């Protein structure tokens, strides 16, 4: 079914109104040699009932967090989603509206985005936030481009411990531009977190920004306040750097901010993050939403949609898209970004999640994640052959362990027992950030003590069976 709803008789009436005798006349403008003849090589139309059957079958071929206890993270997390969100974002007025260009016909989405911007600004301790970006990695890349343009400098200090996908996107976004990515290494291989002294050594007069993720790819909380301080305060022996000071960009996990110090409290100028944990399902990596918050000074340089509060002719509170002169449809090549859409529906999910959770709910989620993750880490560390990869580093809801044999093997065997037990650090889709025996385990509020105890047992059994023979 193609969902058209004009009858044959009506079509004839319409053709007569246009003054042609057939629809083909309207397509004669396409030169004959390039007209497509015949039928596209696609499967024939399926009825809705057949489609339901086909899709149910395809969906049933997947074994997901729905039927396995999920301890996978590395940038996408299996968090609890309140039940009211799905029916609410399914309302046609939200689902089937376009970008709110016409304020008088779009007050609902505009107000929701304004509230979203405020919530994200308050969460991150920043002055303002935009109405969302594609996802976390592109938000980080856009932040770096903003910093480079703002400072007119080209060196970008990148924490070695950021998500490999973020690094990959940063490379793609900067390789054709006048930008040098300089990695900030861990002070020692396997340290898991950065040292401010390393930053102090790398920062120079041509440094546009420093970008750090915390919790980082290993789940470890970075000393971002000290790292940003090191980037901004020159060595006491030197004079103040010429030009603009380096911009501090913090990559955050929104759930962690229920508990941890916010980017703003740590001295960040721009804070970006993956918003998926705020009420969006995993859905195999997307769509998610990028979070982008910044200090006031960047208001007119930010990428993405911004909603402002104003009033109407009668003095009633009203909302509209604003500062559009930054954007591609006005500025073309001089725009701050080519971004056109935000992730409207997913920003709505996130704002609904944040409103429903409230400050106490978010704190509770963050605490549940922390306590549970630490419980599981303690249990696994006690298993023969297993150890924490970074035993002295503070972590939030995710940690790396060393297994007695390749992590991929452990994951396969645990899957048979009903667990998505984690992410192997040598997963090629993760850019191979670690050794074969490294396993990254994430724990959300959804995991129960019983599931964790079972997982530990499964690990113990697998180790016993294989005798750690591959170790």
């Amino acid at each position: 079914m193609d969902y058209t709803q004009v009858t044959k008789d009506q079509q004839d009436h319409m053709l007569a109104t246009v003054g042609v005798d057939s629809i083909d006349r309207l397509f004669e403008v396409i030169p004959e040699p390039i007209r497509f003849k015949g039928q596209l090589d696609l499967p024939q139309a399926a009825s809705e009932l057949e489609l339901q059957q086909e899709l149910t079958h395809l969906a049933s071929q997947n074994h997901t967090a729905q039927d396995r206890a999920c301890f996978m993270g590395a940038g996408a997390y299996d968090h609890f989603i309140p039940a009211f969100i799905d029916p609410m974002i399914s309302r046609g007025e939200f689902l089937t509206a376009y970008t709110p260009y016409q304020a008088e016909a779009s007050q609902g989405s505009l107000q929701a985005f304004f509230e979203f911007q405020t919530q994200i600004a308050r969460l991150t301790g920043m002055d303002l936030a935009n109405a969302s970006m594609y996802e976390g990695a592109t938000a980080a890349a856009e932040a770096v481009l903003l910093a480079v343009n703002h400072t007119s400098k080209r060196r970008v200090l990148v924490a070695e411990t950021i998500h490999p996908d973020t690094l990959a996107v940063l490379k793609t976004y900067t390789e054709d531009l006048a930008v040098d990515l300089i990695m900030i290494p861990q002070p020692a291989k396997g340290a898991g977190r950065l040292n401010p002294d390393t930053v102090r050594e790398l920062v120079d007069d041509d440094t546009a920004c420093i970008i750090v993720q915390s919790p980082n790819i290993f789940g470890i909380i970075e000393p971002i306040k000290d790292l940003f301080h090191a980037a901004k305060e020159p060595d006491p022996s030197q004079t103040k750097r010429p030009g603009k000071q380096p911009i501090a960009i913090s990559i955050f996990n929104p759930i962690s901010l229920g508990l941890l110090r916010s980017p703003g409290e740590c001295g960040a100028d721009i804070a970006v993050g993956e918003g998926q944990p705020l009420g969006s399902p995993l859905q195999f990596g997307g769509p998610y939403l990028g979070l982008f918050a910044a200090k006031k000074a960047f208001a007119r340089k930010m990428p993405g949609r911004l909603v402002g509060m104003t009033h109407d002719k009668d003095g009633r509170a009203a909302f509209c898209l604003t500062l559009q002169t930054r954007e591609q449809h006005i500025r073309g090549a001089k725009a701050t970004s080519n971004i056109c859409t935000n992730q409207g529906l997913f920003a709505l999910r996130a704002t609904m999640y944040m409103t429903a959770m409230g400050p106490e709910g978010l704190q509770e989620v963050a605490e549940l994640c922390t306590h549970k993750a630490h419980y599981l880490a303690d249990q696994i560390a006690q298993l023969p052959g297993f150890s924490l990869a970074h035993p002295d580093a503070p972590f939030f809801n995710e940690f790396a362990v060393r297994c007695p044999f390749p992590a991929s093997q452990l994951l396969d065997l645990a899957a048979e027992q009903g667990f998505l037990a984690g992410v192997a650090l040598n997963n090629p889709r993760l850019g191979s950030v670690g050794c074969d025996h490294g396993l990254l385990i994430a724990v959300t509020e959804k995991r129960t003590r019983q599931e964790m105890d079972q997982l530990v047992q499964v690990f113990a059994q697998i180790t016993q069976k294989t005798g750690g023979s591959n170790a």
Partner: protein
Amino acid sequence: MTQTFMEPGMSKTTDQKSNIARRSDRPVEPTIFEKDSPGLRAIDLPALDVPRSELPEDLLGKGPSWPAIGQLQVVRHYTHLSQRNFGLDGEFYPLGSCTMKYNPRINEWAASLPGFLHAHPLQNDRDIQGLLELVWNTQQFLAEIGGLPAVSCQPAAGAHGEYTALKVICAYFKDHGQSQRTVVLAPDTAHGTNPASCAMCGASVVAVKTTQGYTDIADLKRIIAEQGPDNIAAFMITNPNTAGLFDAEITKIAEVIHAIGALVYLDGANMNAVLGKTRPGDFGADAMHYNTHKTFSTPHGCGGPGWGPIAVADFLEPYLPTPRVIKNDDGSFSLSTDHPRSIGKVRSFIGQIGVAVRCYTYIRACGPDGLTNIAEQAVLNANYIAAKLCDVYEMPYFDAALGKFCAHEFVTVPRRLLDQGVSLLDIVKRLIDYGIHPPTMHWPVHDCLMAEPTETESLQVLDHFCDAMLAIAQEIESDPESIKNAPEDATICRADEVGAARKPVLVWPEG
């Protein structure tokens, strides 16, 4: 105004005695920050079932200062907000270039199946065969529809697809020792995203003149000579173009571009008009993007998520982003990352897979004949409205008598009406009173309206739109002042957008 059938919600409700609730009577919905009741909870959580482990004090923050609200109040808040929005489900939404077609609910149903919804992006290939099969098939569909064999599902939206394809093109030239090719040509009526995407690739953009909406081939040749044929990387073109016209010279343009060793990029924003009628790969495009939220009915969701998969010719395939979905010899599917000439990643993980499920479902529902029918009906609907309105609303590119038809959308520059002292804004805001979302304004040319009815609207709705447009023209003829306060029946009167930009208030004040 002649009385015609009106769908509920489409009638003009300025009559105070009308028993239909006026949108303007709806009270302002206070923000959530005005509803703060500290201590209230909308959602409870399970009790802690493990021992506590405290983090070092110096890592802890003070938490967000969000309002606390009960659950019913939360639900009412968003219900009320939704009632302050036009959406395609409720209103005709003829935004030109946006293809606001019906979004079948089966697509939403499919995307919410737990086997799709809860898959983690780093799961083992073996656990996600159904998903990979779906994505692979979707890629095959898009390759066939575009006539370009290799598809990447990674770009997050149309503009992101443009960017990705340009990166691919630049990578191809670098790989072939032609890294000097950094000039991209685009018609002066191109989507704003085109030049912005080029700038992000470090390419410079040169605008090519258009005449009557069409690319001026003489100017194209002049610019090529001026810039140096060896410096040109690509020509970006939208076809049907941004004026809603199919550029019949496209093969000639492609010849000119290919003759100098450059590539043709097709902005697929207007693919709805040519589905099954002609294929970019057949008319000379080397790369293109789709806007699935336009062509393939995935919902616009107040501005996203979009999805901008790209399709490219064989010789560009090695440069596509990773990971890629591939079909193995044994019929199984994998995500592959080992592509040394790839441009790398343009976003995290794999792509907008939740949108891909909707796109797949739609293409399967339509089938090949359905897709062709979509193009035909979309084009007929646009020409039908244009024919009914052209006596009153001047149409620079439409003249049925001369055989000049539009594609799936039409442009009007209503000069006679504007000369009566009204603005374009007055006209479009008045449409809101008729229960119709305004068309696109001032694009692709100044003082124009661009309307795209899409194929899914009924004849009654198309007639209602025409009647409303004609009624507004009459209102202007009799008293131009009468529409200056429009909309009269919206949740707000005209918003002060100038003031909003002058003194931006982007967050609700703290405290």
